[in-house]
């Protein structure tokens, strides 16, 4: 005889009432990527913003070309170009206030530069004279992050800490389509939503993770749909429409600042160049696809709008091209100087105080360098 039978039989009762935590419908992204350029909404866009975006896009494309050229001259170890993705890069930087923080991935040098990081210091990692060349606190730009998606939880933690301290700070974290497969992407979004942290996640879906197309990366309806599972809104935007990306990002930043919590934004864009200068994109994609995307070029789209509205003439274009050339010339000149290297620096910043073991090793290297220079003087 079971316990239940002793008690006079089991009387089924309904489980405690269940209801969803929230209505998922408002979290769903639009059916189509949001666009401004080429639509009626474009007429309402602020001319100053359009001109600012245009100037940064032109400068950004020139920066990518110059950096790629520097790899061929042996001045950079490697460069992951964001040509074709400049709208996302520039809009990310421009959507933030000065007190906010940017968390870039390794392909987001342009965003860091657009936020004020010195163009040469932004390339330190890729030149290889140190890992991070700039002071992250100067422009509130975290170090360019190489391990995929690992910078996303940092953005969440920083935004959470700022909120705990009562500071009005938003963090914007950038990641690629490939990065959304990483566990850190999941954990960051989950923490952000649970903590209602003021964070914006910008996924640049550029079609490929090195060579692997999105279809092999995810079976989700869109990357923006992933937001629903975390309880945050997902937005889809045309990543080559600088005005649209800026608007969606600015909305999400405002929402986060107002205490509304995080947003996941998927920007549909395309990597026109190979993964890096060391990659051969012809092994995994055809010219037709690249040409199709060249027809939806972020700079050409914005230029068209500015010209149509009479906000940009040939002289205006030339002014921006000249400014970009001046930036490139300065970059070239400074990158062609050998960086000052001090091998002793290797030991300086491992710990606040070097351990006794590191002091011994530092002395060893010092002695080796001394012997080397004695030898060369002999």
């Amino acid at each position, binding site marked *: 005889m079971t316990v239940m039978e002793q008690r006079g039989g089991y009387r089924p009762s309904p489980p405690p009432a269940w209801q969803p935590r929230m209505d998922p419908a408002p979290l769903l992204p639009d059916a189509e990527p949001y666009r401004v350029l080429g639509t009626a909404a474009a007429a309402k866009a602020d001319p100053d913003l359009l001109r600012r975006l245009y100037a940064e896009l032109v400068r950004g494309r020139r920066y990518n070309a110059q950096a790629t050229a520097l790899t061929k001259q042996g001045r950079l170890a490697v460069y992951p170009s964001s040509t074709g993705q400049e709208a996302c890069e520039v809009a990310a930087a421009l959507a933030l206030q000065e007190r906010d923080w940017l968390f870039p991935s390794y392909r987001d040098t342009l965003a860091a530069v657009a936020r004020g990081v010195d163009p040469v210091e932004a390339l330190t990692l890729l030149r290889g004279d140190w890992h991070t060349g700039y*002071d992250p606190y100067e422009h509130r730009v975290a*170090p360019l992050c190489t391990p995929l998606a690992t910078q996303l*939880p940092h953005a969440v*933690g920083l935004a959470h800490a700022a909120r*705990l301290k009562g500071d009005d700070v938003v963090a914007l974290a950038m990641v690629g389509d490939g990065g959304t497969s990483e566990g850190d992407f999941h954990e960051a979004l989950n923490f952000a939503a649970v903590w209602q942290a003021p964070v914006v996640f910008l996924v640049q879906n550029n079609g490929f993770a090195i060579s692997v197309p999105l279809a092999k990366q995810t079976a989700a309806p869109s990357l923006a749909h992933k937001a629903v599972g975390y309880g945050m809104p997902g937005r889809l935007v045309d990543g080559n429409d600088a005005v649209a990306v800026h608007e969606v990002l600015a909305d999400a930043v405002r929402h986060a600042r107002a205490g509304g919590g995080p947003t996941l934004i998927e920007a549909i864009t395309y990597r026109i160049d190979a993964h890096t200068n060391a990659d051969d994109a012809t092994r995994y994609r055809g010219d037709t696809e690249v040409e199709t995307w060249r027809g939806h070029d972020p700079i050409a789209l914005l230029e068209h709008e500015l010209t149509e509205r009479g906000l940009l003439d040939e002289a205006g274009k030339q002014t921006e091209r000249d400014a970009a050339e001046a930036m490139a010339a300065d970059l070239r000149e400074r990158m062609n100087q050998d960086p000052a290297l001090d091998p002793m620096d290797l030991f300086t910043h491992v710990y606040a105080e070097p351990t*006794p073991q590191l002091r011994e090793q530092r002395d060893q290297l010092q002695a080796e360098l001394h012997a080397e220079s004695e030898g060369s003087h002999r």
Partner: protein
Amino acid sequence: MTTVAVKPATMAQALTRAMRDAMAADPSVHVMGEDVGTLGGVFRVTDGLAKEFGEDRCTDTPLAEAGILGTAVGMAMYGLRPVVEMQFDAFAYPAFEQLISHVARMRNRTRGRMPLPITIRVPYGGGIGGVEHHSDSSEAYYMATPGLHVVTPATVADAYGLLRASIASDDPVVFLEPKRLYWSKDTWNPEEPTDVEPIGRAVVRRSGRSATLITYGPSVPVCLEAAEAAREEGWDLEVVDLRSLVPFDDETVAASVRRTGRAVVVHESGGFGGPGGEIAARVTERCFHHLEAPVLRVAGFDLPYPPPMLERHHLPGVDRILDAVGRLQWEAES
């Protein structure tokens, strides 16, 4: 002069007290982890902190170790001093990428501009009858990662002092808590100001002339017991408690071995690729002409941690330590 009645306290209580005092002294100290809030941790080491300081200062996080440490990185970037609890040694592994790629090297990557003062508390080691994945000795992984300090207490007083020092450190510290010593008791008065132990100093727990047992964490009491038992054999053993694996106190260790001329390294972690190999090499490099015998190691076997009903065969015990001491070429003495 008044005498304060000193009651015995457990290591777990001393650890709690260290966090409580650190939180009271510095509002930037935040405790976070799985079950650390309402429950007070599965070992109750964070007991009462959420109640006293609020859930924003002692936070139950989602169950994801990489997320816990990754968000702690961001919090430290913004000037907080996170104290992270990893629930068990083997549950810390998902956080390794954050630990190795970011926590350990952010200061270095940024030329000192972005130090990360994070303390990562990890209950470690066996001997508590834990089932699979609850008894690992993971210190070798941490020791092999430049940029981390690796600290482990063996006494109640050290648990307090070393944890305070770890939280105060501007560098990341992996703070390994020997689980089976959580309930060990000692007379330690939390009301008396305790000197905060500096990180990186070993201590001689027992003086002796015949040989040195070099050990840390959960193996310290075992070595002290072995030293007592060794008296019957006529050996007077010295026991050095390392307290800090990184930085390593070569000075204290080498001074002891130069005095005794013989050394055995004792730890639970596996011998092959374990801390003992590094320690034996360092001792040999510094004390070669004082050594009467090769430096021996008594370690856990090179196995995945055994099931609890077999763990006693794996863990270094008094007999295995005495056996090693017996192999230190005493015949040369006669």
